[in-house]
């Protein structure tokens, strides 16, 4: 989607906001929010791309006004409610001071146990899939990115659409976010690393030697 999250090349955000000796978390609630998200993800009711799309579906003004972990909080609330694991009424009642204990949702998954955390963290979730799929492009080949504007999730940023690039590496077959965010958990496509000249993306004023690399799925690319 052409959302406000797609920030590459935008002007008007002058402050880098560098902080020396920055702590891992700035507030106690950020700590809990981070860990709650990990546990909520582990319930297995959504995937990383559904989650990213939930962040992107935020009201754009709210997105820019709020911090990173507020985005996480928003995505977690949205998905828990959409999945029927929590209701908006339960959340509002608790925020309003109602301490009636909450009941489990019918057929809800089991919680990630403390004893499973270490293994889950260090195992991770590889996105590559060992499936046979012919490669449409080869390293060195010139390609052009698609001029697409899907209303759903995509990982082809606006600044890199309809641009000419050179394939630099074949990354193998990876899970494909555009279809995965729509619920196809195992949708996969071949992924390529593609080089773009800075002047192709930003015009003749850009330093001639500079380049930008993106990892792009096969259906984002067309032969030039």
């Amino acid at each position, binding site marked *: 989607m052409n959302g406000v999250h797609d920030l590459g090349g935008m002007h008007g955000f002058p402050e880098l906001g560098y902080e020396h000796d920055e702590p891992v978390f700035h507030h106690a609630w950020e*700590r809990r929010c981070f860990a709650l998200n990990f*546990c909520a993800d582990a319930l297995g009711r959504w995937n990383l791309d559904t989650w990213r799309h939930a*962040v992107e579906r935020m009201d754009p003004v709210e997105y820019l006004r709020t911090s*990173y972990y507020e985005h996480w909080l*928003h995505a*977690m609330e949205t998905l828990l409610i959409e999945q029927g694991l929590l209701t908006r009424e339960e959340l509002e009642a608790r925020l309003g001071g109602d301490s009636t204990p909450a*009941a489990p949702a019918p057929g809800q998954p089991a919680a990630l146990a403390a004893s499973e955390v270490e293994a889950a963290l*260090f195992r991770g979730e590889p996105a590559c899939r060992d499936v046979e799929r012919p490669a449409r492009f080869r390293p060195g080949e010139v390609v052009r990115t698609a001029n697409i504007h899907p209303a759903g999730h995509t990982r082809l940023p606006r600044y890199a659409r309809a641009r000419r690039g050179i394939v630099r590496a074949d990354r193998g077959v990876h899970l494909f976010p555009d279809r995965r965010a729509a619920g196809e958990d195992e949708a996969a496509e071949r992924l390529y690393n593609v080089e773009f000249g800075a002047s192709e993306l930003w015009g003749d004023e850009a*330093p001639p030697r500079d380049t930008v690399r993106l990892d*792009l799925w096969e259906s984002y690319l067309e032969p030039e």
Partner: protein
Amino acid sequence: MADDHHHHHHHDAPRLADPELRVRALESLLTEKGLVDPAALDAIIDVYETRIGPHNGARVVARAWADPEFRRRLLRNATAAIAELGFEGSQGEHMTVLENTPEVHNMVVCTLCSCYPWPTLGLPPVWYKAPSYRSRAVADPRGVLAEFGVRLPDDVEVRVWDSSAEMRYLVLPARPPGTDGMDEAALAGLVTRDAMIGVDIVRAPGTERDG
């Protein structure tokens, strides 16, 4: 007027409520429902606050500087080489190490969200996640580098890596001069998080950036 004000602040509650209250409400509800084990939350926080951080990446860089065989393995298959040091898992499943050379300076960003190699660098700093860096890094990387006190000659290619997929990038900075006699632990002490993102270089001992 007073009514307008009242209405304006309440029609879209609770989404805009204080995040501290919302997180507390969510944690209590999910715990009561049996969807979250509070001890799991503590275990997760402990890992990211005490065990995972840029000190891990600094060890990878120092070993690559000190051990040419490790450097070769690292550049060929970064995920496996980094795992030799025990750094692997969430947000480090597909690692690529980018070596800075006299010809190429690498710099990493995620314009669409805030993808970052957690096992080697920890959780990203606020500036990496904020709109200013994400908007400017791809369009004006030399301007961003200048803010970090780095000015590169025009004949050096600035190569920006936008983390659009699950590939995660760690920059292998150039080893600074005057460090020949240093062991791996001392070398690791020179390596900064910013240099491994590619917004800074590693400076020789005694010539660190001010502040």
